[in-house]
């Protein structure tokens, strides 16, 4: 319809344009944090030994299969045969060893700590990698599905910021900073050739622009709509609206270490004062899920804890009286992100109902929020989407900005990680419940994976369980 449909029907079949919000500032996730780079590169350009599927199960990737030793400390991975990097080099076990040792030595991304547990890496032959851990871990293999597991060519790390050389189904044809990334399918890919050969990631600061572009046919998919109210406009046969889960828990965080929310009664009052259903409906148009804890439903240790704190303003008022904080003002630092700003308006209104006055202070995200709230812990209340997978233990550790006293859960966590799978699950459940019952933070809702696409696009995963946005499975109907 629009003037931009310069690509005819024929060409349409093997190309697709997808809108994203957070743009990669460069291509190097080893030294730059944030979700934007792995979202574009993992599973598309870089691959790990293993990956996680839509149900949260770990699946083989570069490793055909793997063995775990009796003491659960040594993993032996058997690599796929005939895997080539996009620069033509063959994948060997040396590359894996090089890549993983590099995590510990050269990476600057804070997530590199996920590899701290690795003791040694051996390469008995070209296609076998033996990785020994310092102690058994239930989380390590899962962590390997994230960016720390990415395998680089020994010769391919000179200019990571601008050139990505991986084994994945796509290579980057063009990276226009701040605007778009053009992916092109590789002929020499070891696995199945993707159905759509040319995929473009286009970055939109503004959700309305993205939705307009979809309406006028200039793009095909909006990967995560940041203005969910707009979804209503796509309720027709021409489009599909996919609302799945992510790993992002939208947390109304309270400073457990100092200020008025040091007192559990104050935090409990907040838990009772917030009508999470209303928050979800008004701030995010009802898209998303109420969770009640720091665990998304796709995690193996998920448990529905929405009933622990009911919406009960009267109770909240009583608790406030008990805590002696009636009419107190406190600092509510809000990152300037669409969801956070919307939430802050309804939350502060609900708190006002029970007699708490939140002084909203909008902080530029990431720079100022990271500096003041996150690093300097200069806040009473804040709201943020903690998007990393399985991050409960990180967020509720002692020195994290929330300041949760983790003495109760530290032991359980250690035991769970080194124990059997069942022990792991039950241990983690216990941790999640403890945190919720402590009213350490208010888990408002699970951030939705709200994808809008033309109706003839297939292969879009409903749930986002890893950072990666996998494009190899996309196709046109």
């Amino acid at each position: 319809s629009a003037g931009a449909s310069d690509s005819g029907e024929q060409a349409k079949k093997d190309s697709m344009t997808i809108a994203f919000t957070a743009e990669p500032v460069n291509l190097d996730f080893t030294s730059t944090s944030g979700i934007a780079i792995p979202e574009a590169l993992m599973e598309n350009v870089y691959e790990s030994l293993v990956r996680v599927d839509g149900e949260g199960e770990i699946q083989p990737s570069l490793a055909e299969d793997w063995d775990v030793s009796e003491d659960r400390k040594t993993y032996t991975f058997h690599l796929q045969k005939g895997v080539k990097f996009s620069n033509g080099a063959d994948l060997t076990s040396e590359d894996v060893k090089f890549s993983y040792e590099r995590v510990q030595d050269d990476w600057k991304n804070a997530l590199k700590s996920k590899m701290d547990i690795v003791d040694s890496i051996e390469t008995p032959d070209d296609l076998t990698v033996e990785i020994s851990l310092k102690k058994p871990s239930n989380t390590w293999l899962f962590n390997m599905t994230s960016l720390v597991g990415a395998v680089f060519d020994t010769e391919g790390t000179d200019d990571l910021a601008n050139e990505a050389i991986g084994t994945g189904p796509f290579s980057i044809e063009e990276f226009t900073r701040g605007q778009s990334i053009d992916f092109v399918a590789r002929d020499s890919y070891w696995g199945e050739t993707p159905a759509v050969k040319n995929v473009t990631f286009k970055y939109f600061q503004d959700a309305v622009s993205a939705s307009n572009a979809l309406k006028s046919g200039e793009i095909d998919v909006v990967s995560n709509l940041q203005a969910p109210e707009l979804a209503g406009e796509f309720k027709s046969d021409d489009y599909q609206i996919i609302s799945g889960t992510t790993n992002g828990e939208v947390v109304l965080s309270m400073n457990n270490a100092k200020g008025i929310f040091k007192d559990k009664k104050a935090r409990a009052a907040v838990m009772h004062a917030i009508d999470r259903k209303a928050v979800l409906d008004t701030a995010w148009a009802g898209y998303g899920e109420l969770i009640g804890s720091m665990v998304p439903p796709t995690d193996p240790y998920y448990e529905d804890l929405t009933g622990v704190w009911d919406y009960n303003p009267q109770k909240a008022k009583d608790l406030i009286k008990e805590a002696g904080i009636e009419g107190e003002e406190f600092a509510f630092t809000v990152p300037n992100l669409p969801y956070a700003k919307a939430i802050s308006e309804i939350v502060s209104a609900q708190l006002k109902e029970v007699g708490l006055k939140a002084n909203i202070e909008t902080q530029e995200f990431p720079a100022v929020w990271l500096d003041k709230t996150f690093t300097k812990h200069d806040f009473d209340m804040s709201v943020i989407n903690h998007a990393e997978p399985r991050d409960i233990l990180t967020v509720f550790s002692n020195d994290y900005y929330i300041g949760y006293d983790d003495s109760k859960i530290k032991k359980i966590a250690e035991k769970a990680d080194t124990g059997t799978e069942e022990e792991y699950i039950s241990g983690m459940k216990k941790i999640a419940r403890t945190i919720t019952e402590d009213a350490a933070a208010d888990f408002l809702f699970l951030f939705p994976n709200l994808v809008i696409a033309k109706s003839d696009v297939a292969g879009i995963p409903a749930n986002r369980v890893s950072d990666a946005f996998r494009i190899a499975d996309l196709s046109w109907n």
Partner: protein
Amino acid sequence: MSENPSTTSAGEASADRRRRTKLRLNSSMIIGGVLILLIVALALVSFIWTPYGPSAVDPVARLQPSSPEHLFGTDRFGRDTLTWIMYGARITLMVGIVAVGIAVLIGTPVGIVAAVFAQYPWGAWLGAVIMRANDILLAFPALLLAIVFAAVYQPGTGPAMVAVGIAAIPGFARVARSGTMQVLGSEYVRAAKASNRSVPAIAIVHVLPNIASMVIVQASVAFAISVLAEAGLSFLGLGTQAPVPSWGRMLQESQQFLSTQPGLALWPGLFIAIAVLGFNLLGDGLRDRFDPKMEARGNG
């Protein structure tokens, strides 16, 4: 932003003609004045009465069209739009007053001083320095300043007002300077010097009253510009922040409801337009009333 172009002396007859029109209250002024009074009235009334509280959310009654209960409808949180428009009038006026206040109080004296300095051999370079500094300031538009302020402090009405105000300083400095130059070059200032008046006395007795009209005109235009600028900054998230009601922010947030709830964009858009129109018309009217050509006669 605008500089009144200096003009050469007009004939006495035409100056006479203009003086005659000066006595009329022109229609631009009347219409502009009425529009502004409307905004002022909204703001004043909001202090004693609004249909609802500004933060009275009602998730059940969200996104309603106009109705007897909610004359202008409700927003995504079920807040009353009319209430927000009324509160927003306060912010709009405050932004205008503070921004223009900053610009007038700094820009005008700077312009006068630069012009006065330029009269002296020892001050010519100082005058030039002041005006060059002014040019540099012109290179920092409101938006840039607002970005910096938002980063240094936090985004909000205050930094936005200050940014808009600072960005408007050069305009006033220029107008004040060129007006002062004209006045200082005039025969009646020579006469005042011959009457033994000191330079500060001349600046107060002769310069100020004679450039006042230009400054007033400039102020009304700057007022309109700052209303738009605040709206633009709020649009970028650099202006007024939640939960303070502001028309710019309302307009920005209405975007995603344009097709479902156009009223959310209509009302703030309409009131911004009314405010801007009001100030512009008033400025036009004032411009006609105090025709700058009157000053130009001093050039001779």
